[in-house]
């Protein structure tokens, strides 16, 4: 269905409803002609239909309602009094409108009837004449019969059917001409009215009219229906589990049927709650227009995927974030026409929005072709605002930098406008999106524009979840957070998981994945595990592995809120101190549970909030590798995660994990040369290799090794492979025993794990390297 048809459809439904009301109002009005409220209501209804029909270019409908409206305006203003004759005329208008609507509904146009006579008669009344009762009675006998009979005057003049207008209350200035004009047009109109009647009936049998095929339903009713369907799904799950243990074929068959019906019912009810995103978007053109006018910019709004449907609750939840993002794009993103032309772009900016379904989620993209976001500026801002120190900021790559915009208290607007830029907003946007289980991501190319991607679930009420176990408790994890599952047996776990100082890390395809033990986070007793199950989760733009005892099943769960006793669970700080040696990063009192659900066997299971769990484990959203817990916080110096490596001559060195992208093993044969540098082709890029021995002025090469141990480091957008003899471990340490001793390539030495270890200043490593671009050209 295209946009216009849809608008017409809505117009028809609405108008049909209004017409019924109009009928009742007019009849009531006749009994109580002095009621201004009724008159106002009638006037409004006709006015609405007139307005919309004008907009939709239904000219006949418009002209009929227009004169009807004018007449009603006179009535409303008390200029003329309502007589039964007038009421009939008005009812005739209603009938005309109704038949026009029917015609529009079936054929898409107004049909051949032009209702000129009706318009003329109405105009005549407007010109000061009283309507003729018989004229109304004769041609449209059915519609106005009752009124005619009730009107004594009308009965008296029925002898003269060809005189349509009889001035019952003759005034001196009755123009005669218009009255006569009306006469010849009257008969064909009557004839057509008769012919039309059976045709309408045919239509009625053939297909349901729009007004009959839709009903408006209270959202509360839908919600309660949804709840009941939720219960049904739960009961079905319970039943299925029971049936699986029995050998009753008949019962199994019945259950299967129940399963199908419940599934379809669930889908149907869910569909009932779906609304097109256009119900939100339809307000945007106005927002964009007003805002761009105000700011002296010209912006084209392009909308794709208007028909994308999502749950009403979710639609409501994204309303404000979306509007905010649009305002932001126009205010901060798109430049003034002069600036745009100076930058060689068309003066008119484009803001395009795209909505589509993908993988059971709804994606919404907001793309502008404005100035984009300067990552350097954001980093500076973050430092200036005291959100992070310069060192941390300098390690952020550009993508991480632009996503700083979501940090609470962050605003880049140099001047505060009344549109946006008051420092609240983007963090609230993210909070709102995440509250409904969505994720938001921002990419920007300075000078080219900004793209914001939002992914939100289709519905909130029933979600697919993974059921895991920890210490005989079952927990549900929403599938939306789930990336993959890893199973390690005891021997694999021993080598694949590096655990030092409570900061376990798993190398998932060479990438360091911080591990979070569910038992530990929930203060459940520790246990020796035969098999380690890692649930790889994504939350807050970061990934981590949740270590659980067992992975049980996937199940459709109905999310139920927790009672107010459990809304604000005490965080670790408030919990009794366990053993005292572990000081957790301060956790706010946010609960790690997103709700609870009832499992197939009727037991209650808690739903884990992956984001809250990551926060509780002390992972900072800024650093992908910011793993684990903080130890030795009492020394006052912040602990750092460092990667311990060995050099060719047996010396040890340490690289900060936050600068480490991945750990790779690269075959010696893949190493090529570009200029004076050793390079390797790595992920469609040329990765320069740096021998850490050379940086630290060591003597050792790496004799005879067929593979090189490479630590891929990152500084901003630049990457380099640091070649070491061996990768030893990842440790958390405060580096309190420090000396300035080093071999000019490092940042001093410290005692780490009982060995003197040189600290590598990663910027030193990058200092001697050509940029990736230059390297590409050299090659």
């Amino acid at each position, binding site marked *: 269905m295209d946009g216009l048809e849809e608008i017409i459809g809505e117009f028809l439904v609405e108008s049909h409803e209004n017409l019924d009301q109009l009928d009742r109002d007019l009849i009531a009005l006749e009994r109580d002609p002095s009621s201004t409220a009724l008159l106002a209501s009638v006037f409004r209804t006709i006015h609405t239909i007139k307005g919309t029909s004008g907009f939709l270019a239904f000219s006949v409908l418009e002209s009929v309602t227009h004169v009807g409206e004018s007449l009603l305006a006179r009535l409303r203003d008390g200029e003329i009094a309502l007589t039964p004759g007038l009421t009939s005329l008005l009812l005739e208008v209603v009938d005309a409108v109704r038949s026009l609507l029917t015609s529009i509904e079936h054929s898409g146009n107004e049909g051949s009837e032009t209702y000129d006579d009706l318009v003329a008669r109405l105009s005549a009344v407007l010109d000061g004449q009283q309507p003729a009762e018989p004229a109304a009675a004769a041609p449209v006998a059915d519609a106005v019969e009752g009124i005619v009979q009730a009107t004594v005057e009308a009965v008296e003049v029925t002898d003269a059917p060809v005189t349509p207008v009889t001035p019952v209350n003759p005034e001196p200035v009755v123009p005669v001409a218009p009255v006569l004009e009306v006469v010849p047009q009257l008969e064909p109109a009557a004839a057509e009215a008769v012919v039309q009647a059976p045709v309408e009936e045919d239509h009625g049998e053939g297909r349901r009219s729009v007004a009959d095929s839709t009903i408006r339903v209270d959202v509360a009713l839908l919600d309660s229906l949804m709840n009941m369907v939720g219960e049904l799904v739960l009961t079905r799950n319970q039943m299925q589990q029971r049936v699986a243990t029995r050998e009753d074929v008949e019962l199994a068959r019945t259950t299967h049927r129940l399963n199908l019906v419940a599934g379809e019912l669930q889908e149907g009810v869910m569909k009932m709650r779906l609304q097109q995103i256009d119900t939100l978007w339809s307000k945007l053109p106005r927002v964009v227009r007003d805002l761009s006018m105000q700011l002296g910019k010209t912006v084209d709004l392009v909308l794709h995927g208007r028909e994308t449907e999502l749950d009403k609750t979710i639609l409501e939840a994204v309303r404000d974030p979306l509007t905010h993002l649009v305002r932001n794009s126009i205010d901060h993103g798109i430049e003034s026409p002069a600036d745009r032309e100076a930058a060689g772009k068309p003066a008119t900016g484009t803001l395009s929005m795209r909505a589509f379904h993908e993988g059971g989620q709804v994606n919404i993209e907001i793309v502008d072709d404005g100035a984009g976001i300067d990552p350097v500026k954001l980093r500076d801002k973050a430092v200036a605002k005291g959100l992070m120190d310069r060192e941390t900021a300098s390690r952020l790559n550009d993508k991480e930098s632009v996503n700083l915009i979501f940090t609470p208290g962050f605003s880049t607007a140099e001047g505060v406008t009344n549109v946006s830029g008051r420092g609240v907003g983007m963090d609230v946007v993210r909070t709102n999106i995440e509250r409904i289980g969505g994720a938001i991501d921002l990419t920007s190319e300075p000078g080219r524009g900004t793209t914001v991607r939002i992914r939100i679930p289709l519905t909130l009420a029933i979600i697919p979840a993974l059921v895991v176990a920890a210490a005989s408790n079952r927990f549900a994890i929403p599938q939306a957070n789930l990336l993959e599952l890893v199973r390690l047996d005891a021997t694999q776990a021993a080598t694949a998981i590096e655990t030092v100082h409570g900061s376990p890390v798993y190398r998932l395809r060479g990438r360091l994945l911080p591990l979070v033990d569910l038992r530990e986070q929930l203060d459940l007793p520790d246990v020796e595990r035969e098999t380690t199950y890692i649930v790889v989760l994504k939350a807050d733009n970061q990934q981590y592995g949740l270590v659980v005892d067992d992975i049980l099943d996937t199940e459709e769960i109905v999310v139920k809120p927790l009672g*107010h*006793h459990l809304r604000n669970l005490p965080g670790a700080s408030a919990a009794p101190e366990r053993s005292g040696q572990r000081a957790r990063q301060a956790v706010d009192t946010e609960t790690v549970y997103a709700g609870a659900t009832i499992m197939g066997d009727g037991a209650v299971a808690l739903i884990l909030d992956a984001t809250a769990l990551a926060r509780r484990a002390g992972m900072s959203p800024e650093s992908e590798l910011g793993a684990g817990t903080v130890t030795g916080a009492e020394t006052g110096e912040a602990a750092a995660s460092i990667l311990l490596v060995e050099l060719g001559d047996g010396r040890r060195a340490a690289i900060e994990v936050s600068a480490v992208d991945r750990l790779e093993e690269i075959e010696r044969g893949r190493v090529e040369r570009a200029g004076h540098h050793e390079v390797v082709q790595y992920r469609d890029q040329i990765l320069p290799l740096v021998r850490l021995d050379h940086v630290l002025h060591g003597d050792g090469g790496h004799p005879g090794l067929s593979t090189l141990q490479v630590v891929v480091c990152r500084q901003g957008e630049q990457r380099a492979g640091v070649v070491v003899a061996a990768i030893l471990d990842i440790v958390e340490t405060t580096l309190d025993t420090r000396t300035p001793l080093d071999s000019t390539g490092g940042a001093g030495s410290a005692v780490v794990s009982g060995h003197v270890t040189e600290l590598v200043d990663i910027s030193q490593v990058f200092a001697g390297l050509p940029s990736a671009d230059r390297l590409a050209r050299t090659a």
Partner: protein
Amino acid sequence: MSQYCTFTLDRHLFGVPVSSVQEVLRAQGLTRVPLAHEDIAGLLNLRGQIVTSLELRSRLGLEPRDEGAPSVNVVVKTPDGGVVSLVVDEIGDVLEPSRDSFETPPDTVPTTIRDLVTQVCKLDDHLMLLLDTERAVTPGGTS
């Protein structure tokens, strides 16, 4: 004259108005909530509704129940229209003591109990402590 639903906790007899009790459940599987306050016994499935269960012994500052000792869930209505379950040792009779047998709690009643007990009812052979359910189910009252 009003009726009171009675139950025992660590040898004390408690009573709550019958009108505030929705139902009494025996042998309910509770789902523990890690990290939750110690007053919270867990969650139970009451015909599809998830109900928070409070350990009344802990709420009143009494000794914890012996491992494996039986317990009963008394589901009471909360002021906000919901329900909360109170875990007690044993359910007793419904009593209908005369109005003049009530008194304010004497000093002999431990303070932790007195906070949640509005009145004491003198029965023939022992005392019934009238529990203020509204306060008992209000979170954070003990901290």
